[in-house]
């Protein structure tokens, strides 16, 4: 066991920690992504505290343009509700659902991919067939069906997104596990009779982490987009303000009041952009050789 541990450690010593950060720091786009992500997280966490306006409350004349009233800096929607309050409170719903869904995606994908890539044979065959089956179902459509059949709550939305989006993660995890399981130090620890669970999660997983972290980051962006799409279609909890909901409910009025749909969309755009820039930056940081692609 000690031998395995030292192997694991020597492997993780090669794991890009400080080096990766050095590379990451030098990319302006990656830093921009980080700034965007931090900014939006700060908005979501302390925004509503600093600006405690109920986004459902009617506070001013409907469809007041941004800058025309001090009561609502970014204007009001078709009912006279404060857009700024909606953006701040909506950030929370969007991010929470996005993060939860991404976490679920990664967990499901990782477990399935790891088992398939480690055990191979029958288990691999079955799990990959299941993965293929899930890939046949158009993800958003499938999520719509799940949400409709269950109930439109944040939890259901998050779980549905997770259930429809794990297959690519599973394929990636499987490929990584397949690659790593045949490396010398893994073969060595297998031969020395170490428990399989230990090999999977403590020996292989740490070495498969870099690509999985990148994919997990990008998954957050996709999950945010899914959440926005579902709320846009009116399939999320109508009592929770979110950016997608603001766009969906405001779209009939958008030709008269562009800001109602434009501003929340800008927020989604920057949130997803930030996350994907971070993902790209991490990718470059973990694979310095592959840069410029």
């Amino acid at each position, binding site marked *: 066991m000690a031998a395995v541990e030292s192997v694991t450690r020597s492997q993780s010593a090669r794991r890009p920690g400080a080096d990766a950060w050095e590379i990451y720091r030098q990319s302006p786009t990656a830093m921009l992504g980080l700034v965007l992500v931090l900014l939006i997280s700060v908005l979501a966490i302390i925004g509503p505290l600093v600006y405690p306006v109920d986004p459902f409350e009617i506070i001013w004349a409907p469809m007041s343009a941004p800058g025309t009233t001090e009561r609502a800096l970014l204007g009001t929607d078709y009912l006279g509700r404060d857009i700024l309050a909606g953006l701040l409170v909506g950030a929370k719903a969007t991010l929470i659902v996005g993060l939860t869904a991404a976490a679920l995606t990664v967990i499901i994908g990782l477990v399935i991919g790891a088992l398939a890539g480690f055990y191979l044979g029958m288990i691999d065959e079955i799990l990959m067939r299941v993965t293929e089956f899930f890939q046949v179902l*158009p993800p958003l459509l499938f999520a719509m069906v*799940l949400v409709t059949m269950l109930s439109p709550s944040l939890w259901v939305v998050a779980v549905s997104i997770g259930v429809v989006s794990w297959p690519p993660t599973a394929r990636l995890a499987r490929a990584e596990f397949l690659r790593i399981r045949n490396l010398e130090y893994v073969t060595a620890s297998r031969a020395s009779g170490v428990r399989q669970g230990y090999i999977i999660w403590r020996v292989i997983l740490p070495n498969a982490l870099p690509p999985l972290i990148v994919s997990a980051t990008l998954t957050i962006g996709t999950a945010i987009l899914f959440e926005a799409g579902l709320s846009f279609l009116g399939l999320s909890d109508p009592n929770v303000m979110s950016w*997608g909901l603001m766009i969906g409910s405001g779209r009939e009025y*958008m*030709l008269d009041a562009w800001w109602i749909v434009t501003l929340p969309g800008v927020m989604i*755009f920057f949130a997803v952009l930030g996350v994907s820039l971070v993902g790209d930056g991490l990718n470059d940081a973990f694979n310095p050789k592959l840069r410029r692609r």
Partner: protein
Amino acid sequence: MGLIWLIGKRLLYAVALITAVLVLNFSLLHLAPGDPADVIAGEMGGATAELLAEIRALYGLDKPFLVQLGLYLQRAYQGDLGMSFYYNLPVVDLILQRLPATMLLVFTALSFATVGGTVLGVLAARKPGGFTSSMVTLLSLVGYAAPIFWTGLMLIILFGVVIPIFPISGLYNVAKMATGLSRAVDIAHHLVLPSFTLGVVYLALYSRLTRASMLEVMQADYVRTARAKGARERTVYLRHALRNAILPVVTMAGLQFGSLISGAVLVETVFNWPGLGTLVFESVIARDYPTVLGVLFFSATLVIAANLVTDLVYRMIDPRIRLQD
């Protein structure tokens, strides 16, 4: 012989997948909260007693689950996906009415994305640090991060209000009552914004993919051989490199057909495009489950068909896997 055997095997697997989708559909009907008869009637307890009795008889809801499933599959294979009690039409008829509009939208967008993405990617690969290349990078970031329905709405504001040159809603102009060629032109005109909205996301992705793939392939030994033969740079790019570089794009396009259909649902909703997307949206709001599941089934079938086609296209381009598997 090899090819026929291969296609046969693929078709068999496709049938298995389709059956699996049907099983999923049927399980969802049962998993939904409430009495399945109510769920199928779509009115959550508000349906008349006769209707419910009719549904119970039709689906055999008093029989064991597996028998019910058997009945359901049997009817599905005969082209019967149940009744939409909201539209009062068989689900299959309803879907077949809407399918052409969706196919038109999806294939226009797909062609735009693959052709445009390839052209952009090749141009970008010619000068890795150049203008086109930067545009591809920018486009791929924006294309990924902008929610597709929002892009659609922004285009509606732009082309409905600011520069009104494209129609922003529907498949054709009902008031015009155009026929023949002018109707086709009218539809094409209506198609511009929705297919652009849907396609540009994938165009962004494929251009980036093509660029990376071209840059890699241009380093290949056979590209050097082509040059050593005295081929023009154009020929080297378009004949020798592109044909190899396109392979990952084909794979990606096939893998993403499901997500393309997902995108179509949103785009159709935004542009009131009378296809499966608007149908599923309306049925979701009306809780018309047989229709919702019918659309899921048809879309999954489309994806399966698209995967078969992708597989064949890939084999046509790449002789290395022609006879494998």
